[in-house]
């Protein structure tokens, strides 16, 4: 069929770009509010700063329905396994924003109780500095992430790490090996 016979407009593009475009515009965050930063995260979602502009106003309580995790606040040694489990429950592709200095590096709490940087547990895509980062800073981080999604590799993370995360495997309660994301992706 010759092109001028088609009765409607169309665009051509690479499938990859379409996928990236779609992903970028519908990032669903999981709530992972931990401490003071969580309040600023909520403030970003509220009327004044209106996260809905980026197509991501609905914070999903269930990690299975989310693909972005804000680690908002300090992660304690007791919380670390929980955080990792929530991360593992999220479906690929998934991203992590580490919000605030506590999540990024332990911040001022360089002591026995706090994990010195959440990147020891989950891979982090964007670090948002501040204590707490204001909503503007957080939104800047979100835009940086959008840019990463738009320009980044489609399947980068899976190739980089065999377990689909930071490469840390956690033994399961029943002694079974960690659930493998690798079987399908590695082949």
């Amino acid at each position, binding site marked *: 069929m010759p092109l001028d016979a088609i009765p409607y407009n169309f665009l051509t593009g690479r499938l990859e770009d379409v996928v990236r475009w779609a992903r970028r515009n519908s990032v669903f965050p999981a*709530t*992972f*509010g*931990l*401490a*003071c930063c*969580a*309040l*600023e995260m*909520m*403030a970003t979602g*509220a*009327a*004044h700063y209106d996260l809905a502009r980026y197509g991501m106003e609905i*914070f999903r*309580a269930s990690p299975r329905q989310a693909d972005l995790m804000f680690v908002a*606040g*300090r992660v*304690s*040694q*007791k*919380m670390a396994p*929980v*955080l990792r489990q*929530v991360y593992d429950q999220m479906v690929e592709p998934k991203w992590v924003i580490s919000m605030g200095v506590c999540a990024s590096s332990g911040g*001022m*709490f*360089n*002591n*026995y*109780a*706090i994990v010195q940087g959440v990147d020891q547990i989950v891979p982090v895509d964007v670090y948002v500095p501040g*204590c*707490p980062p*204001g909503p503007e800073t957080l939104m800047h981080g979100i835009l940086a992430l959008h840019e990463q999604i738009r320009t980044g590799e489609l399947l980068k993370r899976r190739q980089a790490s065999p377990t689909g995360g930071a490469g840390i495997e956690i033994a399961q309660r029943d002694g079974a090996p960690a659930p493998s994301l690798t079987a399908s992706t590695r082949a």
Partner: protein
Amino acid sequence: MSDVWEEVERLGRQTDEGAQELRPRSELVVTGGPWPEGEGEGEGETMIINMGPQHPSTHGVLRVMMELDGETVVRAKPVIGYLHTGMEKTAEQLTYVQGSTNVTRMDYASPIANELVFSTAVERLLDVEVPPRAVWARMLLAELSRMASHLLFQASNGMDIGAVSMMLYGWREREETLRVLEMITGLRMNHNFVRPGGIAADLPDGWQRAVLELCEIVERGIDDYDTLLTSNPIWVERTVGVGVITTEQALALGISGPILRSTGFPWDLRKAQPYLAYDQVDFDVIYTENGDCFDRYRIRLGEIAESIKIVRQCVDMMPAGDYRTQDKKVTPPPRARINESMEALIHHFKLFTEGFRVPAGETYVSVESPRGEIGCYLVSDGTGKPVRMHIRGPSFYNLQSMEPMMEGRLVADAVAVISSVDPILGEVDR
């Protein structure tokens, strides 16, 4: 003191006459031993479920273990520690000047209360007097902070119980409050503005107008909430008679703040043991009789209005003068002197690297935070860093009220109860 105090005394007299037994009930136990596993197979089987620690309706990272019989909560047990930050250990590594940076991150919904209690404790050990302007500015900030905190409660309480639009309304007004706090202190949260010896900087130009405008905005806001919720049949259905606690239970469990006041016991440290200049301003202690979730909502709504009243009086009566003590031991030299005097520079440097020394001693200071009595137990050994800094977080104790409130109620009520206790986990776990 006003009729409120008479009310407390009346309750006390009744104790003497035996009409009302106002004595903590010792048989109340909030921590049962470890729960038996695999109990109750078959008929009448109960189920143990966990809410949290990662759950939208729990505030922060609270985890509640509940034993359910069908939809009824048989037992409930909060499990905490998921936000344990080791702040009391960190405080031992920080000087007294740095200390308020640390404590302000505990109760992050009302940071000023934390800074205030810590600074007051340090001043008491030092025997330093705070100039009147600092006292009034502290009071102004404390009340603004209380407003922000209670507005946050209105937002999250509404969201938890299903009035999702409250989430947006509450944040709308809270955002305005934060804007004013940012104007005065430079930060939206975790201000580190109240410091031993006074406040960090003078109030900025034009603060009166900003504060008065805020009062009007918030006043309009709470009228809105009142219209939206107070006589809303769904709201009433969800909260009235839910999560009831009695005065004796509350006293036995060490509960303070709006939860204690909701049981008909008008105890407010601002009235009962006035600190700052609370004895010079006019305000009421709001209290109700029923001790349920609805009452706690109403009390907090009323307290916003009272805070507005205090803030307006602060604007009128703010004295002029120094905003921090002129005691050289605690206060750095003014900026202009540093540029021209070597001694001033050294003094400034020493103060911020080594801090000042505090004579050996111990003290406990308490103020009324939006959640109840926040206390600071401070022990010093004559050096520049405390031996022990312990914060008595009101939420830590208030959390214990969840068990008696939840037992025998439905799971849906449990959410309302958690929300109405209004715990801030940063303060619980510290």
